[in-house]
């Protein structure tokens, strides 16, 4: 993985010093809350319901065992012994004190981590495919380019006060595992006829209010122009994006109002005009960063059947929680943070420490965060899978439910977040307990439930096969259900099934949707396929049928 050089270290420690000064001025009363707010937000610090929330950046979801151990240690000493992994592949601490945040940042800096630009109206953590570098279907590893973009965007003097937040995802596989089409900018790696690396560039995707799917602004952007072109997009956005209405300030609104043709013309013109003064990505710098992402020192191993003579539970885990690896003899392993009865994405300090040790033992000391709030050990020898399973089981990290209904995404919701309208954690728990039987879950096949506690859509509800959105009605928590959303290579936004339902009715509603699916599915059809084939009406009819009529 990438390692800081002196420039990176210096910049991060100077940022820590700056933030310490800002926080001290706030605590001393020299800065008002209004003045401190944009400063702390640029550094991932929110003031939440109960306490501040600190969002720590995990660039493109890649962690060393040292870093994960440190995160666990920080959560133990400064928080309540756990953290929450997010859909931006970051980690949130829910209970640090404001006074301690500069110290936390200093400890993070010592392991080459920070919280820079994890919130605020700036370029946020760049996300990537969680199987980057190991997926068999990959054109090339996107992570060097994520790292280059991370550096370029960090404390960018011109683009730190954009109209609104700005999210970039990069993927190197045709199967889009990074939800790149619902990002402000999505970059898809491509090769031209001469074999040179470049990117298809999408712009104007996004969730939140008025969700939109990104549109192609450029079919092929040569690699040396990557930063110059991003700079052109951001400059056009910074100048012309709306600032009068927070709900209309994302770049998707500008792209829509100008139309993609006009927006493209603006960007291409800015790119051409600004080329001489824009950063050029020189080959030496690309090579320097790429050298940190060379293939790991894999052993030369045959593929083996890791499940031979093993018990059923292990076979189920192998089937659901592991994925193919491009290197023979290896496999990628999901670490499920979706144990039934626990908030999705939460992990204790003890689990982090144990997983760091396990990564050292079986997976080159590296850990990934997936945007669907699970972790991975991506480089496990097939012969080590059984002991990996045993070790994960001992930490309750081996629930064999990846890709099933209970592998749901959920933001922290009303229990923590001051933006939320409704709770998510208790709803997730109720759904998990209603669908607790793993064999039943396996029969239901691949189902993605994504839940957000408000319109900001941190839980990606628009692109869930089943989406759940918390809404507030007359001071009560209600939930709007959508069907038909998807990402992963075919991006679609879900449609609202009908009037929202009360909290206690959510599991029942999902059960009724599942009933229709089970009754109507063809062989091998997933819920999303059945929905696309038969449409909304049968689901709607069943969900809103009176109990008597339904019986």
């Amino acid at each position, binding site marked *: 993985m990438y390692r800081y050089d002196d*420039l990176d270290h*210096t*910049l991060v420690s*100077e*940022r820590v010093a*700056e933030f310490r000064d*800002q926080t001290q001025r706030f605590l001393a009363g020299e800065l008002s809350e209004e*003045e401190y707010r*944009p*400063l702390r937000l640029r550094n991932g610090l929110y003031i939440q319901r109960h306490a501040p929330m600190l969002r720590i950046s995990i660039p493109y979801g890649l962690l060393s065992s040292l870093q994960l151990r440190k995160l666990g240690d920080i959560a133990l000493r400064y928080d309540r012994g756990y953290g929450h992994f997010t859909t931006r592949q970051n980690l949130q601490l829910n209970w640090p004190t404001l006074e301690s945040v500069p110290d936390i940042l200093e400890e993070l800096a010592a392991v080459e981590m920070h919280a820079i630009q994890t919130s605020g*109206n700036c370029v946020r953590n760049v996300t990537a495919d969680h199987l980057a570098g190991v997926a068999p279907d990959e054109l090339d590893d996107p992570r060097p380019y994520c790292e280059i973009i991370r*550096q*370029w965007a*960090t*404390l*960018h*003097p*011109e*683009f*730190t*006060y*954009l*109209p609104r937040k700005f999210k970039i995802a990069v993927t190197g596989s045709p199967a889009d595992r990074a939800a790149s089409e619902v990002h402000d900018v999505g970059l898809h790696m491509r090769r031209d006829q001469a074999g040179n690396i470049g990117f298809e560039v999408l712009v104007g995707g996004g969730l939140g209010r008025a969700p939109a799917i990104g549109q192609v602004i450029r079919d092929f952007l040569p690699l040396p122009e990557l*930063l110059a072109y991003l700079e052109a997009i951001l*400059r056009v956005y*910074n*100048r012309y994006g709306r*600032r009068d209405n927070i709900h209309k300030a994302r770049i998707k609104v500008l792209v829509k109002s100008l139309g993609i043709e006009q927006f493209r013309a603006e960007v291409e013109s800015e790119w051409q*005009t*600004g080329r*001489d*003064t*824009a*950063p*050029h*990505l*020189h080959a030496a*710098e690309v090579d320097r960063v790429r050298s940190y992402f060379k293939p790991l020192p894999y052993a030369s191993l045959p593929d083996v059947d890791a499940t031979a003579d093993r018990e059923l539970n292990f076979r189920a885990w192998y089937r659901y929680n592991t994925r193919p690896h491009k290197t023979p003899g290896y496999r990628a392993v999901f670490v499920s943070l979706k144990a039934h009865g626990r908030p999705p994405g939460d992990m204790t300090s003890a689990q982090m420490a144990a997983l760091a040790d396990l990564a050292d033992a079986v997976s080159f000391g590296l850990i990934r965060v997936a945007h669907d709030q699970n972790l991975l050990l991506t480089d496990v020898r097939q012969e080590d899978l059984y002991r990996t399973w045993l070790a994960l089981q001992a930490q309750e990290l081996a629930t064999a439910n990846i890709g099933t209904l209970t592998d749901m995404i959920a933001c922290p919701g009303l229990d923590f977040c001051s933006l939320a309208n409704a709770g998510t954690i208790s709803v997730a728990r109720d759904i998990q307990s209603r669908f607790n039987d793993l064999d039943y879950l396996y029969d239901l096949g691949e189902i993605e439930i994504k839940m957000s506690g408000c319109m900001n859509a941190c839980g990606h509800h628009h692109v869930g096969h089943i989406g759940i959105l918390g809404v507030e009605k007359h001071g009560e928590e209600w939930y709007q259900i959508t069907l038909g959303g998807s990402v992963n290579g075919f991006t679609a936004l879900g449609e609202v099934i009908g009037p929202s339902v009360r909290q206690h009715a959510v599991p029942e509603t999902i059960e009724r949707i599942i009933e229709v699916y089970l009754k109507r599915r063809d062989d091998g059809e997933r819920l999303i396929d059945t929905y696309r084939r038969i449409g909304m009406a049968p689901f709607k009819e069943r969900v809103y049928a009176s109990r008597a009529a339904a019986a």
Partner: protein
Amino acid sequence: MRLVLRQREVSADDWTHFEADRAPDADADALIVPLIELRKDEARWQAWPGRLGVRIQPADKVESLAGELDRYALIAVEFPTPSEGRGYTQGRLLRGRLGFTGELRAVGGAVKRDLIFALARCGFDAFELAAAEDPAACIAALGRYTVAYQPAVAGSSPQRLRFSV
């Protein structure tokens, strides 16, 4: 007394801001006039005997000043709130693209130490300090970072950069 930070030194402002309801002092040698006022009566300001500056708003397109930059000894760019970010681009374009060589001044309530480093990298060389802002802290802020990743306006960045043009 209004303070201005230039060249790592703070001094009393030698410029006057135009006020719509008050005729400028006849002996005002250096006057900053809002762009909207300038456009109302171009002839009047062409005849202004002293030094002339123009004050632009976040929504103003700096390209509209391209043909007349040599008329101005100063351009003042407005930063009314900390979250207003268009001025950074205006500064970069005025300096880096349109080649303005006069004083590029950040003005408005948000011009405080926390913004100054980024403003300087976008080509600003003068900062009209918000009331009650500590001048020494603002000078120190110019040296807040000794490194940066991206190139910005030539000559305004730390020596050590990652990327180059």
